[in-house]
């Protein structure tokens, strides 16, 4: 456990672990895959010493279903993986969505499709945001842009999971996971969500009526009712939308980018501002719920847009949907396989500004 205000130089993957431990995560279920191996390795050292649970499962499928079991008990629990492993976890994530179980899933994503590579990529945006598992469900998706944010957002992830009784995904990539930065620890706190009886969780029935947690709804209209209720719940998540606006007020062009790409784009923008280019950054921090209202507001005030992603173009669809009444968005996709530098984004931004180089 960290002491409040403690300052350390750590990797993103370790920040996620320390954030989860500070937030009262009691159970961790994992399986090795690069580039997130630091997470199960750290948890295997720390959790048992704190009297908490670490299990290396036989597969991602099993790890995610162990998570489902712990979540059904109302215990703060988490699993982590990377892209192909997240595909395997989707079955349980859909069940947890349908059963309304609070669980935290970390995806330190890598390049795909298939085995792809182990380098950074944002190719899992669709899977994370649109529900890679079956059925009509949604999950909170939090995308940290710095190691500090990785620490802070994992604490937030547990709070949101229990506030909405819903799976929450922290979506990072190999840049966030492997990068070292100074971080201030100690702000994540365990709340009462690890208390024995939350009114819905399984504890063994004792003297009360038995409880049943399930996602099967066979009687006429039951599933429709359930899905409508879920829809309203997902809509209510809007009030917890998170984003960062950087120098947008006087900007002609707003770059929209998330996670580590948002952070790199910020450096580009800082540099281009110095040469008088009116560019700003909008960085969605929650990818679901998406900051559509804010983007619409910015578009209504006459801004132009360029979406930059580390993929072939996924979030750009959500940007276009958000701003469609007023504007369109250009797109620049940096291909996976190498790490973009702030300089890589200069030409695409100049092109979107209509400046000839």
């Amino acid at each position, binding site marked *: 456990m960290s002491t409040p205000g403690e300052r350390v130089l750590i990797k993103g993957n370790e920040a996620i672990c320390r954030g989860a431990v500070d937030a009262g995560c009691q159970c961790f279920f994992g399986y090795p895959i690069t580039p997130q191996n630091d997470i199960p390795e750290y948890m295997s050292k720390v959790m048992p010493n704190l009297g908490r649970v670490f299990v290396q*499962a*036989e597969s991602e499928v*099993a790890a995610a279903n*162990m998570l489902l*079991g712990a979540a059904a008990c109302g215990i703060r629990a988490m699993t982590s993986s990377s892209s192909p492993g997240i595909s395997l976890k989707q079955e349980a994530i859909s069940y947890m969505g349908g059963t309304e179980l609070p669980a935290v899933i970390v995806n330190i994503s890598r390049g795909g499709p298939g085995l792809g590579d182990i380098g950074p990529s944002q190719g899992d945006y669709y899977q994370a945001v649109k529900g890679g598992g079956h059925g009509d469900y949604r999950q909170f998706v939090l995308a940290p842009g710095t190691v500090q944010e990785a620490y802070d957002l994992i604490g937030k992830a547990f709070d949101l999971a229990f506030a909405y009784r819903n799976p929450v995904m922290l979506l990072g990539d190999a840049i966030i996971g492997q990068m070292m930065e100074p971080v201030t620890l100690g702000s994540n706190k365990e709340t009462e969500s690890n208390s024995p009886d939350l009114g819905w969780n399984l504890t063994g*029935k004792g003297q009360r009526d038995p409880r*049943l947690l399930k996602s*099967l709804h066979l009687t006429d209209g039951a599933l429709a009712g359930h899905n409508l209720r879920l829809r309203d719940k997902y809509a209510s998540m809007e009030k917890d939308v998170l984003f960062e606006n950087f120098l947008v007020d006087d900007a002609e062009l707003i770059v929209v980018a998330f996670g580590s790409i948002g952070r790199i784009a910020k450096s580009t923008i800082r540099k281009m501002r110095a040469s008088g280019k009116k560019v700003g950054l909008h960085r969605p921090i929650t990818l679901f719920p998406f900051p559509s209202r804010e983007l619409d507001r910015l578009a209504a005030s006459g801004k132009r847009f360029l979406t930059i992603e580390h993929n072939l173009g996924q979030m750009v669809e959500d940007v276009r949907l958000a701003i469609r009444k007023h504007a369109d968005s250009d797109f620049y996709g940096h291909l996976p396989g190498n790490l973009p530098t702030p300089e890589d984004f200069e030409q695409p931004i100049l092109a979107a500004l209509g400046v000839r180089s």
Partner: protein
Amino acid sequence: MKNGKEAFTLPGVLADVPTHYCPGCQHGVAQRLVAECLDELALAEKAICIGSIGCSVFIYNYLLVDCVEAPHGRAPAVATGVKRARPDTAVFTYQGDGDLASIGMAETMHCANRGERVTIIFVNNTVYGMTGGQMAPTTMVGQRTTTCPGGRCADNEGQPIKMTEIIASLGGTAYAARVAVDSVKHVRAAKKAVRRAFEAPLNNLGLGFVEILATCPTNWKMTPVQANERIAAELIPYFPLGTFKDMAGVDSNEETEVAE
């Protein structure tokens, strides 16, 4: 007889509602044995049932204990999560052969190998019941199903898997037995095995596993009586009854192993 009049009473943990099982289906018998053991071991208050996929999925409508539903085959992983999160509970799964021995083979074996302190109740009716009678890993060679209409052929589909033998071979298993519910004598032995399968994890010895050979008259296309007779004639000779492992060291063979 409890009060001199009643010949049959409902275990307190069994809901007083009609079940959805087909006539002659022995899921009902298996489920009742589980209920009786939960009652006798006074576990209702601290039990957590993991429902699985198959005709047994509605077990949670009949057992008055806390329950969570697992995806197909994953009940042992869900049980692991529940038991690790709440070590003070009595956790059990109730699974069919398609669920446990096919899609959930890995979860079942690793749960046993880790020695999770949980109980697995495995109802083997040699067929996928709920989805309409397709071939299961336990389908007998020559048995016709909707996906092996010419009868299961060992060359093409392999041999029926003997789960209890596999589970007994794993280090974390404390108790593993195979029973049947085709006769009064076998039902009595089955009850004892189910009880032991609950006691092994409670006594912190390891995993408790019991395989119950049961009928599926609907998909076997037999009358309930014919289906019951098939258990003795065809299934028991291939799937021998008995205790395959008992870490408690109790010689339970006389109770569960019944000479044919």
